[in-house]
């Protein structure tokens, strides 16, 4: 690996993620037609390369005659919103608790670690479905559910890393230099674990996209008429023998988004780690 901070993983992964973000941002301009517009004459229309396709519906239409391409483009919005907002909030909560547990030790550490153990012993998907059932559906519930469930992912790693950093000589130097605990934590420890946190954030964003898709697949995300990738998959599953493309396209997009984020995370890991970079 070269010393360049930009390796091919970052370029490809980051490029795809940026493209998806742009699509989400400019969805109303990019979508050829209204994603909610129903046209029963176009019901289950095939994509462009098939014989009886309609040129205005490049990726075909679903069982209500809605344009698949426009719905895909608009559905990038909830996916990206959840990825960014839930990812960031999960990172903040998990990192804060991880730093506290790792640096303060004692009762605080025991308490937080115990909570992490209990949290992670329960499968996340099940927990998410239960939580959303409790707090009601909608994008904000999906975000709350992800944050409440997945903070442990950051907390565990940050705690372990903080413990490791606390042993380092530069911390001793800072203590000798008379820096207060809070200052040491934020000015010395945090910058050193930040690369790790950023790598975790990309992974968390891919998980958030999956969770959003899963919850909208089972009908627990945003209301069913506004398009989501998971909702489109659920609709496509019903008509899979007549129109496989209704399910295949959103599935492919989720796969691309998840792989791109993973690739970006891998690339960042090598780029930000001085040992691996060499």
């Amino acid at each position, binding site marked *: 690996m070269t010393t360049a901070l930009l390796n091919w993983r970052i370029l490809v992964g980051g490029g795809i993620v940026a493209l998806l973000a742009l699509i989400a941002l400019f969805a109303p301009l990019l979508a050829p037609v209204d994603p909610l517009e129903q046209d029963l004459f176009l019901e289950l229309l095939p994509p462009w390369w098939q014989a009886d396709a309609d040129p205005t519906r490049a990726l075909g239409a679903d069982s209500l005659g809605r344009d698949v391409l426009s719905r895909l483009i608009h559905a990038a919005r909830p996916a990206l919103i959840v990825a960014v907002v839930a990812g960031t909030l999960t990172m903040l909560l998990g990192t804060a608790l991880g730093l506290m547990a790792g640096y303060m030790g004692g009762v605080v550490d025991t308490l937080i670690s115990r909570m992490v153990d209990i949290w992670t012993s329960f499968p996340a998907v099940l927990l998410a479905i239960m939580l959303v059932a*409790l707090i009601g559906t909608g994008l904000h519930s999906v975000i709350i559910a992800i944050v409440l469930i997945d903070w442990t992912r950051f907390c565990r790693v940050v705690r372990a890393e903080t413990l490791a950093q606390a042993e380092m000589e530069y911390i001793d130097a800072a203590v000798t230099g008379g820096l207060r605990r809070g200052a040491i934590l934020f000015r010395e420890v945090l910058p050193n674990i930040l690369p790790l946190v950023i790598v975790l954030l990309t992974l968390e964003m891919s998980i958030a996209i999956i969770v959003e898709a899963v919850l909208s697949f089972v009908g627990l995300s945003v209301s069913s008429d506004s398009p989501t990738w998971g909702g489109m998959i659920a609709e496509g599953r019903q008509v899979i023998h007549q129109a496989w493309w209704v399910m295949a396209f959103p599935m492919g997009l989720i*796969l691309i988004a998840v792989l791109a984020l993973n690739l970006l995370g891998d690339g960042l890991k090598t780029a930000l780690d001085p040992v691996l970079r060499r």
Partner: protein
Amino acid sequence: MNRSMLLRRLLQAIPTLFGVSVVVFVLVRVVPGNPIAMMLPPGATAADMERLRVAYGLDGSIVEQYVIWLGQALTGAFGTSISLRQDVLELVLGRLPATLELALFATVLAVTIGVLATMLGSLYRGRWPETLIDTINGFTLAVPDFIWALALILLFGVVLPILPISGRINPRLGTEFLTGFYLLEALLTGRFTVLGDLLRHIIMPSIALALPLAAIITRVLKNSLAEAMVQDYVMIARVKGFSRWRIIWQEALRNAAIPALTLTGVQFTFLVGGTVLVEKIFSYPGIGNMAIDAVTNRDLPLIQGLILCFAVIFITVNLLVDLSYALLNPRLRS
């Protein structure tokens, strides 16, 4: 493993189960909506409501209510499902075998795939099969069971329609089963047509569940196998002239298996969690599919029963993992 350790571990499960029961109980209290009002017919008076409240013990304090509820739960009385109008315990127990069969089948599949991939990788260390396996493994680690399930449906249900994409059994074939464990029962009673049909139904959902787990097993097993391969006893086996395959299979793998085995146990709970979604995608009649329907219908008694059922599964599995770890690790055995 001595008896006191076993007993201690068993006793440790009780507070956990107690905690879950509290959560399940509180769950129903915080959900908006009055359960009594939902039971009464329209036109009921306030006096009717009060009578029903007393009848269900809802007039006492929250602690009293919990004690009543726990007493009923301990005798298996979880109430009646609102959407299905049947006894919750009966419903859950009726569906449970299907989920257990799916989860166990998937785990066996995951271990098989994981061990085979590891052995192939180690056999061809440094050559292209190892690189190929590593690449596939990296990809498999990133893709969740949800996507695998959908991809399998597209591949083997639509593009190459060779497998059924929903259900557990062809309804024309099997109705006369004594237990809920269809697969096991068909195997034991020698009904091979039925067995074949059951296998054709279970293979796709279980592969979807197995692949992510297989990837994790491969990664861990490969690392511990690489460590084992440089140990002295492997050197001795090499000096004796055993084949590479035999050294891996008979000597190194056994010692490398412990971390992977523990991991499989821990991951099994996640696999059970994964059944919720995979069952939904394949319309497989297990408790996971039922849980999603219960949540969609806001069927609180059923949700309560199902959460408790899942909790009991997870606690049992964690217990078994700890015990098997103690049995496998000689240092913990004494």
